[in-house]
């Protein structure tokens, strides 16, 4: 049967007003509300990002400056560092968490004894609020009283790592905490993916003599590709917005070692009171993420096609 074309005006009219068009009209109110509530804040953000905003005599005074915020960006010594740190953080945590989440999901999906216990334990970190995680790990990392230091001293270790106080180690310390926190998220998605693979496929592979590695390489991974790609996309978006646990753990320090873009935007808005510039930075991040998501969908389609 020929497909109705959206570019053909007759087909379009038939689709919108003909029999069966009710399904489109019934979602219209929700769609309109969604567009308004998504579009309005973005329009306001856009308006703020091309203005200098100030409270004068109780009134919010706005002055149009066009692309003037680009000047502020060029003069901002921290924005570049924050973007670089954010990218390093995102790439590291997404790759590590994908690998560990997948490995845990494979291992636990094969376990019959204590399976429920393992599943429950693994997801515990995901249930803890990030602020509590930041506080907990800052106590664990504490150089003078922390758990790790205490254990290392008991073991007679001479060199005690400074964790969050060492600029070369601080970002790694933050990444470790994030991996601890979010691996369970990846695990849950991966486990759901693995459990949705038809057992007959795995049985067939086993009958054909495939060992565990081959099963993973040639059956599980290709079947899981769409799930893994979606999990990585979600995790990338979330990791890009990391704020609370770093805020509690290091506040961006030492120096600028763990300064990330969300924290910088918070400082610009809440401590420097530069509403226009903060809006500009927020918009920049939103634009970057939108481009990334579009690119990601395109890339994942290519990958899926290659995997057949």
């Amino acid at each position, binding site marked *: 049967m020929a497909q109705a074309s959206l570019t053909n005006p007759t087909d379009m009219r038939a689709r919108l007003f003909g029999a069966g068009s009710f399904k489109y009209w019934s979602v219209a109110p929700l769609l309109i509300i969604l567009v308004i509530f998504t579009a309005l804040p973005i329009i306001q953000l856009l308006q703020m990002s091309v203005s200098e905003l100030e*409270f004068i005599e*109780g009134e919010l005074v706005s002055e149009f400056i066009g692309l003037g915020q680009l000047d502020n960006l060029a003069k901002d*010594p921290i924005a570049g560092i924050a973007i670089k740190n954010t990218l390093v953080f995102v790439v590291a945590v997404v790759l590590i968490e994908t690998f560990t989440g997948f490995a845990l999901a494979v291992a636990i999906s094969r376990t019959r004894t204590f399976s429920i216990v393992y599943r429950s334990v693994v997801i515990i970190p995901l249930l803890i609020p990030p602020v509590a995680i930041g506080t907990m790990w800052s106590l664990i990392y504490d*150089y*003078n009283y922390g758990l790790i230091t205490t254990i290392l001293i008991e073991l007679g270790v001479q060199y005690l790592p400074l964790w969050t106080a060492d*600029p070369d180690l601080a970002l790694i310390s933050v990444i470790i905490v994030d991996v601890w926190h979010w691996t369970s998220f990846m695990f849950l998605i991966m486990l759901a993916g693995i459990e949705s693979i038809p057992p007959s496929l795995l049985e067939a592979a086993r009958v054909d003599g495939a060992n565990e590695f081959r099963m993973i390489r040639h059956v599980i991974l290709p079947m899981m590709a769409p799930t893994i790609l979606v999990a990585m996309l979600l995790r990338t978006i979330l990791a890009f917005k990391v704020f609370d646990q770093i805020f509690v753990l290091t506040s961006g320090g030492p*120096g*600028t070692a763990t300064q990330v873009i969300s924290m910088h935007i918070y400082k610009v808005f809440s401590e*420097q009171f530069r509403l226009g510039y903060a809006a500009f930075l927020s918009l920049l991040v939103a634009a970057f993420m939108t481009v990334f998501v579009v690119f990601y969908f395109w890339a994942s389609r290519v990958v899926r096609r290659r995997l057949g």
Partner: protein
Amino acid sequence: MNKRIGNFSRRDFLKAIGALSAGLAANPLLNSSIRTLAQDVMSQPPITILINDSPWFPGFAAMVELYTEITGNEINLDVTPFPGMLDKTRNATQAGESEYDAVAITEQNIPFFYKSGLLKPILEIDADYTLDENIISYGDAARWDSDLGVNGPNGTILGVPINGNIQLYYYRRDLFEEAGFEAPKTFDEMEAIAEHFANPPRMFGNANRANPIWWEFGAYIDSYDAEYVRLEDDGSWSVGFERPEGLEAVQRWLTLGRTWAPQNYADLGQADLLALMASGRLAQVHMVGAAAPNYDNPEISIVGGNMGATVVPGVTAEARSPRTGMWVMCHPDNLPDERAAAGLEFVKWLTTKDNQLAYAKAGAIPVRQDTYEELATDEVVGWWTSAFAESTPFLHPETRLPETPLIRDSVSTRMAQAYVDEISAEEAVSLMASEIRTVMEDAGYSVS
């Protein structure tokens, strides 16, 4: 009173009430004077105050309880963690009508709110109000000179100080006496003391707060006469880091902060310094005055009874320049007159001498010089209230301009980078100088 008492347990609050009751019971004259004074307070409508969840909060809450008890006027408190105060205040002052009759504003947010016109001038609420001369000025924190765009003695009164937090220098009195040291007045003396006591990891000679740096470092830069920005006699502004003393101040901070400190010096916040001192592992420290009562709390400190406090040392004894970190109570401009008047009535009551004495007994930080002087001989709090009294002539608040947050951010960032050798001290000074100059020039100030 509303029972929302923030991060403080009912026990903390009851302790403050207990301390206040014991203080009043031990001093019948004060008790009767407070009650007599309360007779002047008219019956007021219930009010709501936005107050921060700080270590001195239980003392404030105890005074609210006392006010309600003896005047019958009801007060609700919205107790909010420090990071949330700014947004709640901003939202309330910009609303059609503020939900709060009084808001506590920290010193660092004063320029934003004073300049914005979002607050009601105190004389519009009570035309007869005068700031008592015993209320410490804290660099004219109550007044805003809109012609100069900064706090000034001729400015409009927009708030009343309600917490007189400043920086103090703390030391282990027992160890100092044993070693024959006097409390230091200069950075050189501090270094000699740090050198003497340093015996890591059991004892550290000195440690500085690194997270963030700008507030405590202010006492160094001001002492070297190189404050971040200064209004000169000719009406122009100068940038302190452009003077040679700016580099000296940075180098002194780095030496004192790193040489005799724990290895994680770059990561030390206020809580870490308090923990090191309270656990007996630090000989001396320069930190917030409001921390003092913690050292006498046996639940968290093993050094109670062995602590001393004095004015933060300087490059010379005469140039000591402790910073202020106080709070003012203000009234949003979008309040009906009777609500603003009811809020101010409580603030006036709280800032009288007798009530400030009770305030200190309850564990809060008073704002009156006569209160500190009277408490200087008190057996329990005298060791730190005397240091507050002694510090008043040396107090050096930061220059509070609308652009101060940008200056502060440059200092915090560059100093933090220098602290961990991301950049050298010379580079940090040069970058701070150029960034602060740019901030001032972009804002239209004439910079000399």
